[in-house]
């Protein structure tokens, strides 16, 4: 049932052979096909623009006022590509190998190799679009090493790489919108997937300005709606990022894979108050020059500049001499939690560690550090009112990215024919842990280079959809969406939507965060349905459905989180091993590293919805490793 459609042949030839074997849509026939793309981040904008350039008619839906505001814009550090411009031994194969290993052997080899192959095309495309990547004096592109890589393969645009890549894709999308080949639907939130005869044929959405519920039909639907990190309430995600589109598709039959693979980013500004609305990431490029430490003695209250070298515990450098401060994100985060849990944490809450630039400033000079990280230092100072040139930064891990997502095959199509899922919204390329500077790479690979080719195979085989807007299933979906919205607006209890969201987030952070146990997860699984019940009794949704209503928007998303959270914990409970971002305390090596169980869990867990509160059905896609040998990850 779960056919990943991985092509035959040697790993380096799979994508090439596959492209040849795919069916094509004749150029003149492409105009006949209408494709809905939901989301305008890197994956969605690049897909919508590229599909339109090929001749398909595209409708682009997004929740913001402009496509340029999607959350890809906030990515700071960079994008990986196997260009080997630094002559340091990089190659497509090395990027592939690093990514499979970094994902703790829980990603699909064939997808990852394709990603590494396409990485070089992405850089070419973006440079041609006018993306102002960092350059050297000679005019050639600059690189840095990033997030656990021992080669310098990361391309960047100051600390705003995501912004510049997204503006490139946005420009391409605007070009196609001006041609009339892409129709833009701003301020629309997708609320349901329309499925007729086991084929995804459209979506319902709410016009966030007028409150109108709309139904749109198409020959194929592409979801590029990002991740679900905001289920934790506090995360580095933008406030509007949400699980609704993928969750509603899941409720219509799309399998949700590996939801327990969540990434906790090691370098974020620590939590400082209960009014806090989100957490702010400090790019992990800071770890190239900053040294992470805590006082060697517990409860050492001296200010950091009074603590001599001998009393500083550079725990990453001591434990992982070859990678030091550049260990992958999951390892860095877990170690920060460990030292804080032992009582060595700093700051007023004790839930922070130092990220210190003193030595780098002494070595390279303040000007050099300012040139590298000036905007990040400014951002830190704006938020904390502390000057990181003189006082070490304080950081703590925070939810940042979700590797899990809707299950897709090699063509990026879900188990529901016609439904394609790109970027963070799918599950396919990062396994149990994503390496730094790989999210931008995946979003653009999927959107620019994979989906434009693979979607043709589906359309050529399936032909145009016969479902028109007056089809009863379309009318039913619109009516159900309207009823659910009306039901939410009818809730006039005493508690605010945010109170429920915070409470859910706290349960998940405590029980399904950086470290998980069977007992904790069972506790969460008992409390989440109770909270969901309370939500539908006690929440207060102010205002009416027929106009701009931001409370209603949030209420709908939180209602979905309250359902999704159960699947997240179910998956985490079932996976009785530790891997990547999923750390079960029961399963660790004597040194405290993640202990996988390849005998029993070397598969992608794809869950099938059975009803709210009902146990989902597990489908397994076995993961086969022909190139990279399964080993214990070591960064010592």
């Amino acid at each position, binding site marked *: 049932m779960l056919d990943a459609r991985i092509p035959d042949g040697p790993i380096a030839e799979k994508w090439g052979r596959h492209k040849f074997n795919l069916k094509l849509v004749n150029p003149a026939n492409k105009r006949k096909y209408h494709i809905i793309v939901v989301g305008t981040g890197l994956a969605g904008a690049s897909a919508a623009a590229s599909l339109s350039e090929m001749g398909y008619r595209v409708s682009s839906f997004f929740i913001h006022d*402009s496509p340029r505001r999607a*959350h890809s814009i906030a990515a700071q550090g960079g994008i990986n590509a196997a260009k080997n411009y630094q002559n340091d031994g990089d190659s497509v194969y090395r990027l592939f190998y690093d990514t499979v290993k970094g994902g703790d052997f829980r990603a699909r080899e064939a997808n990852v190799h394709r990603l590494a192959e396409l990485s070089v095309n992405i850089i070419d495309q973006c440079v041609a679009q006018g993306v102002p990547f960092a350059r050297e004096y000679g005019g*050639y592109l600059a690189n840095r090493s990033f997030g656990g890589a021992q080669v310098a393969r990361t391309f960047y645009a*100051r600390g705003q790489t995501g912004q510049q890549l997204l503006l490139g894709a946005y*420009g391409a999308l605007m070009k196609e919108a*001006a041609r009339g080949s892409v129709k833009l639907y701003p301020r629309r939130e997708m609320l349901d997937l329309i499925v007729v005869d086991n084929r995804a044929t459209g979506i319902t959405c709410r016009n966030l300005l007028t409150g109108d519920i709309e139904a749109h039909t198409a020959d194929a639907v592409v979801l590029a709606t990002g991740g679900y990190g905001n289920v934790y309430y506090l995360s580095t995600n933008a406030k509007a990022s949400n699980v609704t589109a993928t969750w509603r598709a899941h409720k219509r039959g799309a399998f949700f894979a590996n939801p327990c693979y969540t990434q906790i980013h090691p370098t974020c500004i620590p939590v400082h108050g209960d009014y806090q609305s989100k957490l702010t*990431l400090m790019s992990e490029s800071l770890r190239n020059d900053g040294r992470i430490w805590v006082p060697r003695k517990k409860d050492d209250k001296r200010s950091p500049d009074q603590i001599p070298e001998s009393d500083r515990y550079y725990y990453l450098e001591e434990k992982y001499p070859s990678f030091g401060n550049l260990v992958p994100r999951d390892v860095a985060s877990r170690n920060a939690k460990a030292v804080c849990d032992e009582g060595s944490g700093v700051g007023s809450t004790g839930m922070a560690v130092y990220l210190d630039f003193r030595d780098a400033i002494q070595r390279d000079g303040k000007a050099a550090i300012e040139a590298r990280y000036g905007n990040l230092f400014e951002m830190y100072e704006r938020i904390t009112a502390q000057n990181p040139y003189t006082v070490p930064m304080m950081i703590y891990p925070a939810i940042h990215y979700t590797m899990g997502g809707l299950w897709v095959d090699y063509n990026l199509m879900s188990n529901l024919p016609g439904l394609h899922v790109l970027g963070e919204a799918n599950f396919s390329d990062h396994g149990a842990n994503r390496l730094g500077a790989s999210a931008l790479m995946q979003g653009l690979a999927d959107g620019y280079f994979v989906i434009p080719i693979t979607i043709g195979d589906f359309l050529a085989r399936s032909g145009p959809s016969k479902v028109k807007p007056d089809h009863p299933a379309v009318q039913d979906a619109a009516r159900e969406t309207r009823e659910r919205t009306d039901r939410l607006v009818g809730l006039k209890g005493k508690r605010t939507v945010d109170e429920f969201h915070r409470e859910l987030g706290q349960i998940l952070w405590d029980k399904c965060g950086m470290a998980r146990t069977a007992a904790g997860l069972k506790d969460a699984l008992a409390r989440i349905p109770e909270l969901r019940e309370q939500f539908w009794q006690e929440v207060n949704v102010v205002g009416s459905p027929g106009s701009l209503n931001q409370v209603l928007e949030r209420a709908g998303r939180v209602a979905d989180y309250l359902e999704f959270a159960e699947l997240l914990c179910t998956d985490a409970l079932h996976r009785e091993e530790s891997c990547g971002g999923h750390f079960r305390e029961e399963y660790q090596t004597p040194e405290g590293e993640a202990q996988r169980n390849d005998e029993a869990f070397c598969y992608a867990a794809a869950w099938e919805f059975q009803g709210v509160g009902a146990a989902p059905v597990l489908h397994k896609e076995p993961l086969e490793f022909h190139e990279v040998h399964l080993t214990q990850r070591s960064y010592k």
Partner: protein
Amino acid sequence: MAEKTINVTLKVWRQPARGAQGRFETYQAKRIPTDASFLEMLDIVNNGLERNNQDPIAFDHDCREGICGSCGAVVNGRPHGPRRATTLCQLHMREFKDGDTIVIEPWRANGFPVIKDLIVDRAAFDRIIQTGGFISVRTGQAPEAHSTPVPLKNAEEAMDAAECIGCGACVAACPNASASLFTAAKIAQLCKLPQGHPERTRRVLHMVRTMDKEGFGSCSKQYECEAACPKEIKVSNITVMNREYLRALLKADA
């Protein structure tokens, strides 16, 4: 942990819908932590309004990291508030004193009609970009990235201009509600790069024409835009735009 808090009085522009009559409403924001951001202060006020079954203040926001360009309001007469080079989401309440009165209004410009409260319609910016704010390269057409070196100075200047987040503060700050800084930033970015040259003539003519058509005023060199810009985009970009425009007018192939 004991945290410092302040009490402030808010005078907020409330307008139920596009074209509807609006007015200032007064709210008391009590015990606001000074470490809270300006938007978190509004969250606190809105949670109080929700508890009293009142319509919360509508405002656009998303990343709360100063990069998406969603948020923005005129605070005490200044777009994005008193702190230089700072978006509203990155402004913190430590910039205010206990007992302050804070006046909060939406961007006001012909090109940006108010949708509700502090939310304005900035679709005109997308329409300006649609007429030329890109390089027309289809996916797959790109040559090898290193085939055209770009002098470091040009790359840096292009990046300086490219940092624009499209928030609209420049328009809100300008006495003429001109969109010159926004438009010029994109024109300057693309004309600093060799990849942008083939379309430079068409680009500047179309984008300037669209800017005028959308109801934005002309630049009369007040430099208020640069002072308000959270990304410190320089007015020298407008000089680049004007030079490009003149060049384009003189070219026969325009």
